[in-house]
């Protein structure tokens, strides 16, 4: 099963867009691996655009947490574009208090566009 991610550098941030409708148990490990690949050696700020993701289960949530952990304290990992079902998983598990979550992609990248 594939896990297509698209990444581009905007200003001093790496914008990673998930191009799959699901981050579930079947692709959670692949998601982690691909995130490691695309973020390796890149900018300190990483924004994950999840607006194409309509379904995330607890394995997917665990994978997103794992990404934040391997990026470490020196790099900033931010989320944008959570769809309602995905937002609910973050809210129910209180993980919304751990992550920086932007209401939409525009808000997340606006400061970058000005800066660059």
């Amino acid at each position, binding site marked *: *099963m594939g896990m297509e991610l698209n990444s581009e550098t905007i200003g001093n941030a790496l914008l990673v867009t998930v191009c799959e409708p*699901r981050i*579930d*148990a*079947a692709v959670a490990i692949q998601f982690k691996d691909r995130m490691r690949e695309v973020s390796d050696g890149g900018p300190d700020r990483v924004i994950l655009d999840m607006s194409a993701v*309509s*379904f995330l*289960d*607890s*394995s997917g*949530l*665990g*994978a997103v*947490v*794992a990404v*934040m*952990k391997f990026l*470490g*304290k020196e790099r900033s990992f931010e989320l944008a574009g959570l769809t*309602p*079902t995905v937002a*609910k*998983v973050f*809210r*129910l*598990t*209180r*993980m919304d*208090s*751990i992550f920086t979550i932007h209401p939409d992609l525009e808000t997340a990248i606006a400061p970058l566009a000005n800066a660059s």
Partner: protein
Amino acid sequence: MTDDLRLVFPGTTVAVRTALLKMVGNLQQLDLDAEKIGSIELVVAEALNNIVEHAFAEQNGRIDLRLTNGERGLYCAIEDDGSPMPDGRPPIGNPPDLSVDLQDLPEGGFGWFLIREITRDLGYERVENHNRLTFRIPVGDDFTRS
């Protein structure tokens, strides 16, 4: 979905995904909004993933999923012929402890917490060599707010 759906499939990650996609296709024919369908998919996914990961950790087997649309919500019954729950009952599902250092944040253990948050009337039985998990997902009230 008329008012009943039954799916029988092997206890593998890919088969679970396929079953969930089929279930959602059926649910879309009922009068449910997208967010409610998302909650149903989430809780059934958690129950099924746990079966694959734990009940079938050391053996292969089949899962039998039934959904019935009733007055007080959607009734779900899931049977598997895997190993029984530890201590003979489903986990308490404590909320994850988030007051820890970044590197100690939990990457798992959310499954039963989510199931217990979203479902009502949860039941578990070991019948012969089968596990039988039943629950109701209320449809209509705003159970989705935490």
